[in-house]
């Protein structure tokens, strides 16, 4: 299983949804709150080149945008990661 990092901000519905999704699939992930944490924000920008959460990094794959758009890609990445 590749390492999963989730970059989030508090009170963010899309972030919560992705957390639930990952939990639902039994994936372990590291969450980083980028609001008020310049280091995490810099890391997120370095990996995804975006400033807006949520950003999901699964191994080599990095996804951003709203939950609806990320969901199928996350599921695909999780599927290929386990096989």
């Amino acid at each position, binding site marked *: 299983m590749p390492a999963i990092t989730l970059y989030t901000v508090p009170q*963010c519905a899309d972030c919560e949804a992705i*957390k639930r999704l990952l939990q639902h699939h039994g994936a372990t992930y590291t969450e980083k709150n980028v609001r008020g944490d310049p280091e995490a924000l810099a890391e997120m920008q370095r990996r995804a080149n975006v400033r807006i959460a949520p950003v999901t990094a699964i191994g080599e794959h990095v996804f951003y945008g709203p939950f609806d758009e990320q969901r199928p890609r996350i599921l695909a990445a999780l599927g290929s990661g386990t096989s």
Partner: protein
Amino acid sequence: MTSSPARPDPAAPGAAHLTYFVDGMDCASCVQKVERMVAGLPGTADVKTSFTKQTLSLDLDETQTGRATLERNLKALGYTPSLLEQPKSTVPRAEAAGHDHSGHDHAGHGHVHEAPRPGQPWYASGQGKLVLISGVLLALAWLFSFIEPQFAISGYIAATLLGVWPLANKAVASARLGDPFSINMLVSLAAIGAVLIGQAAEGAVVVFFFAVGELLEGVAAGRARAGIQALAALAPKTALLVEGSGVREVPADALTVGQTVQVNPGARVPADGAILTGTSSLDDSPVTGESVPVSKGAGDSVYAGSINTDGVLTVRVEKAASDNTIARIIHLVEEAEGSKAPTARFIDRFSRYYTPGVVLVSALVALVPPLLFGAAWHTWLYKGIALLLIGCPCALVLSVPAAITSGISAGTRRGLLIKGGAALETIGTVKTIAFDKTGTLTAGKPCVTDVVASQHLDRNEVLRLAAAVEAGSSHPLAKAITDAAQQAKLTLPAVTEAQAIPGKAVTATVEGRTLSVSSPRHAASLVNLPADLSDTIRTFEEQGRTAVVLLDRNTPLGVLAIRDEPRPEAKAAIAQLHNLGVNTVMLTGDNARTGQAIARDLGLDVRAELLPEDKLRLIADLKARGGVAMVGDGINDAPALAQSDVGIAMGGGTDVALETADAALLQERVTGVADLVSLSRATMGNIKANIAFALGLKAIFLVTTLLGYTNLWMAILADTGATALVTANALRLLRWKGREARPTRNTLPHTTPHRA
């Protein structure tokens, strides 16, 4: 702001291409909210958001919507735009375009209250300046009314317009988002109406007091927040770093994970960490609100800010200062208090009926008598506007947010962390509270209570073999058995070919024999258990213990009984909840007999032998029947917590618990649940009393003013008085101490929570 009026880029004739960096727009739902608002403005086109740069770019026809209006609308939503000097021509296209997910958490309401930051005096905030300037204008106008009434009227009009401007903007912003009947709209209408009928003085005073009310709310929130901030100050500034054989004093925020610090008696712990050497009693009150010291030894966790009452400790630092428990709690509470949407929900719902009602009644009063009965226009127009003015609810807008902020702060100081107004509002209204068993109602540390040997075996021999089989397993029951063997000082033989059938048995080869430790049901499916052994097992289970059978192939060797003791205060907590009129139920995956025995002891209902999906189904069921709060450890039962109306995590500040649940009990005490329920009810009671008081006063003055017994001025002054009283009443919640009658808390000998 950097909104310097640089001339629009002449790229598109009539339309300027603008790019803003939008502070605060850092989540996908925020982006959606901003895009929807901006696209709804007349004269906007090609609205794009850059996820990369956190910027918003658009083509804006400034003859239709001014740049200032756009910026104010953004601010009204809680985002601060800064215009970028160079409009980027190659803004990367955001992925966000065209997505559509259910409209959650949009702040459709108008008033964004800025609380003064600690250290910032009230008059330095934007709201404070507004109040000061319009107050000065009012005073000047009043003075001029003695000298030259013409000037006075201009002064009143100026003060009214100044005060109404921000309100009207917020009202328009809300109206664009589909909420035309905000409180701001009502106040704006009333003030403008007052100017139109030549009563600018009244209008100015109403607007002034409305602004004062909003300012007071900010001050109240700041005061509640200061209480929490004070907690942060409890963490010491310096630490004694252990280096080689010596000790050196260093700043606490320079500590890094893995360093070792020394904590002397009477000093405060400088960082979150684990005790390496030493034993002491620690007062964890900054983190948990529990002031009775807890005895801790090597391996136990300590929190930054706790007081080391006796004994010298060395502690391994496990969290940097910015990330320690107390910092996270403060951050979460600030988030909770700052989350505007849930805090303002109640008042928004309310104003959706109140504002149109007042406008309608005023219109009827102003129009019907002159039109139908030929009464004098001016008299009735005046009465109509008077109604609008009286209807302006300074006291009302204050009552909800001030009370919620105070409630959250009061809870935090008692170790009840509530993550937002919505959770605080809901906890007191649920009909049922569901508890997870292991680790919530029980201590989560099972131990072996009995060993029964069959045939002529020695009891220690049964324990020794069972422990050997379980040695490789991390299951809590396995740990209980190996711990018991260790306590009995038994030397465990080596095992080979250990394997587990999850939930049923563990099998291994020990000293040449194939042994297994099995659940009674699984054992019974393999062999015929002797009657006396079956009886023993049933007896154990009826006593709330979990039984396992040790088998040598198909020969039972003995039975071990394991019990996870209920927390000492659990029974009292359940009784308290029943006194509050809340149903309680225990959800467990354990077998029915064991579950029932524990539930019977504690006095609550039970649903046993549940699979995780059964728990979710039950929660959904209870949710439909009057609401349910779920109490769990926040780690194993996160889905159930998420599914319930309010998820309450028990756990001394673990990340997961703090993150997943709506509320967390920082002291691991079940009685905190009852405290949460009563705090929620106290807060909602406070809010309802405030609203009833403010509305009642309005109703009285409405009638007496229409009948001519009181005039507009008296009504306005009464509302100001009500504003002050309502604020004071809300701040009273800060002193909330829980229910007074609390015999269990004071007379129980304090049992310190142990950490394994």
